[in-house]
C-alpha cells in the first residue's frame, strides 16, 4: 500500500480523565506501544473517522513517555466534542508529531520563565516536565500560571507539586476567585511583579489565548528579556499539518511547519501573528 502523509495510525485511548468542565486528559498508545518520538511543543493531528481531524498539542513530556503520550483537549469543535464522548479502549487516528517545538538545547544553562494562560498550559507542560526531569541542567525555573477561575485550573496535582518544590518558583492566579480559592486573584500580568529576573540569562515561554499575548509580552519585554529569548506557541486552523493546505499561514510563515513555536523576534511586526 502506498504511504500517504494523510494516513493516520490508529491509536488506543489508554485512559480518559475529566480535568475541568471543558477539558479532558487523554492518554494515547500507538500500535505496539511504539514511541511517538516528539519534542515538547510539537502537535499531532487527531482523527475521528467520520467526524474529521484537528491539531492538538502534546501535553506529556518525552522524558515521561512510557509508551504513551497525553493530550489535554478542550471540547470546542466537532472533533473535540466527539473525542470527549469517547472512553478508554476506543481508537483514534494520529498523524505526527508535526512542527517545530521548543528548542530545549538553547534553554539549557539558562533560567526559564513559563507564563501559560488557561489551556496554554497544555503545550507548555510538556516542556516544563522535561525541564524538571533534567532539573540540574537549568538555572531557575519560574512558572506563572493564570486561569479564569479556580475550577478551570489544569493539572492541579502537578501545580501543587510545583508550588511545593524548593527548586521551582511557581505562582498561580485566577481572574475571579470563589469560596474555595485562597490564592492570588488577578489577571496573569499581576504575577509578574512577584519575580525579578536576570533578563540576559532568562528564556521565557508563553502560550495562551490571543488576547493574553499582548499583555504578557509587555511584561516580558519590560523585564528586559531579549526578543530572541521569548518563545510563543501559536494556535491556527490546520487541515494537513504538513505545510500544504494553507489554513495556518501567518503571512509567509506556516504555523504547522515553521511553528507552532516561534520566537517573538520572528513574529514581531507580523500583523497576522498575534
Amino acid at each position, binding site marked *: 500500500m502506498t504511504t500517504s502523509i*494523510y494516513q493516520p495510525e490508529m491509536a488506543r485511548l489508554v485512559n480518559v480523565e475529566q480535568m475541568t468542565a471543558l477539558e479532558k486528559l487523554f492518554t494515547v498508545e500507538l500500535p505496539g506501544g511504539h514511541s511517538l518520538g516528539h519534542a515538547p511543543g510539537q502537535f499531532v493531528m487527531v482523527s475521528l473517522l467520520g467526524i474529521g481531524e484537528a491539531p492538538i498539542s502534546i501535553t506529556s513530556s518525552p522524558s515521561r513517555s512510557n509508551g504513551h503520550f497525553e493530550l489535554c483537549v*478542550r471540547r470546542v469543535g466537532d472533533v473535540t466534542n466527539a473525542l470527549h464522548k469517547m472512553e478508554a479502549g476506543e481508537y483514534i487516528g494520529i498523524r505526527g508529531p508535526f512542527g517545530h517545538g521548543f528548542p530545549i538545547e538553547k534553554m539549557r544553562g539558562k533560567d526559564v520563565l513559563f507564563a501559560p494562560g488557561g489551556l496554554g498550559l497544555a503545550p507548555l507542560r510538556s516542556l516544563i516536565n522535561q525541564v524538571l526531569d533534567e532539573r540540574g541542567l537549568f538555572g531557575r525555573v519560574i512558572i506563572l500560571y493564570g486561569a479564569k477561575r479556580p475550577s478551570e485550573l489544569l493539572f492541579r496535582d502537578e501545580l501543587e507539586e510545583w508550588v511545593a518544590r524548593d527548586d521551582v518558583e511557581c505562582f498561580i492566579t485566577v481572574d475571579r476567585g470563589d469560596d474555595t480559592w485562597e490564592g492570588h486573584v488577578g489577571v496573569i500580568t499581576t504575577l509578574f511583579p512577584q519575580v525579578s529576573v536576570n533578563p540576559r540569562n532568562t528564556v521565557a515561554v508563553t502560550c495562551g489565548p490571543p488576547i493574553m499575548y499582548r499583555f504578557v509580552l509587555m511584561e516580558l519585554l519590560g523585564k528586559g528579556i531579549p526578543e530572541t529569548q521569548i518563545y510563543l506557541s501559536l494556535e*491556527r486552523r490546520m487541515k494537513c499539518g504538513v505545510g500544504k493546505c494553507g489554513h495556518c499561514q501567518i503571512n509567509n510563515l506556516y504555523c504547522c511547519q515553521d511553528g507552532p513555536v516561534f520566537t517573538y523576534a520572528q513574529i514581531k511586526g507580523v500583523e497576522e501573528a498575534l
Partner: protein
Amino acid sequence: MSLMILDKGAVAPLVNALMADYRVVGPQARGPKFVFDTITDPSQLRLDYNTTILPPKKVLQPPEERLATFVRGAKPQVETVIEAQPTVLLGVHTCDLHAIQLLDKAFSQEYPDAHYLQRREQTVIVSLECLEPCDEHSFCKSMGTLTADEGYDLHLTDLGASYAVDVATERGAELLSKYGTAREATAADIKRLNEVLSAKWPRFTYRLDFDAAELPALLSTAYDHPLWDELGERCLACGSCTNVCPTCYCFNVFDEVDMSLAEGERRRRWDSCQLDEFARVAGGENFRKARAARQRHRFMRKGKYLYERFGVLGCVGCGRCIRTCVAGISIVDGFNTIYGSA
C-alpha cells in the same frame, strides 16, 4: 532531445490512438469559453483555444478527491486511496506549465504528497507555444512565462500546416513514436520554427510597469499600503480569483459517511484564503477577518511569499483572476499601483 514535425491532419489519429491507453485531457469549448476536460472524441480538442476557466492544475489536483476510505466502529480502519490514472494532458500553455512546476515543488517539499505526485508521475504533458495573446488580461510576457524550457514531455509550436514537436523526454519520445506519425524536422522546418518563434514576441505587450524580479522586494515595503483597504471595499470574497489561479493549491479536508455511519471517505476540496472562514479556529478566533487582509495575503503570496519558499514567483501572468473577478480587481493593476507609489 529532438525536433519532430507532426502534420495537423495527424493530430486526430494521434489523439484517437492515445485514448485507447490513456485518459486524454485537453482544451475544449464550453459555451463561449474553454475548459480542460476529458476528450471522448478527437474533434473536441481545440488547440486554438485562448484560455480556460480553470487551469490544467485541475488534472493534477482535482477540485475534489478521495484521500482515504475508512471503517468506523470498535476497531476503526483507514486505508489510503490514491486517485491516479495514466493521463495525457494536451495543449498546456506555457504560463500554466510554469505554474505546474511550482505545484511540483509545493507538493514534493519536506512532506511529499503522494496523491498529487502519483498523478503527476502518471501524467504526460504535451504543451503548446502561444503565438498570440489570449486576450487583454494576460501578462505572461511581464512574468517571463511566455515561453518554457522545461516541464513538458512534448512541446508543440504551430507552423501553419503542421506542428513542430520539441521532444523533451524519453516518455514523450515513446508516446510520439508509439501513437503518432511524425517525421524528423528538416533544416527548412527549423528555419520556419525560428521565424515563427521570433515573430511572436512583438505581438505581446509588457503590462507590468517594472521588472517582475523586483516584485518580492517591492511587496516587502507594501504591507501597509492603502491599496488593500481599497480592494477590501470592492472584493466580494467569492474565492473565484484563487480557484482559477494555476498556482493556488490550498485545500480543505472533510469526512463523509454512508447512511449506516459504518463506513466513509476522507476527501479534500480546493479552499480559498479569500473566504471568510478560512483562518477561523474552532474556538471562534478568525485570524484573517478583513477582506482587505485577505486580498493582501493573495497579492503577497503571488508576488512574495511563494518566491521566498520556492524561488519562483507565484504569479504566472495567465490573467485568469482578472477575467473572473466580477468586481474588476486586477492583480497587474494592483502591482503597478504599488510600484507607482513606491
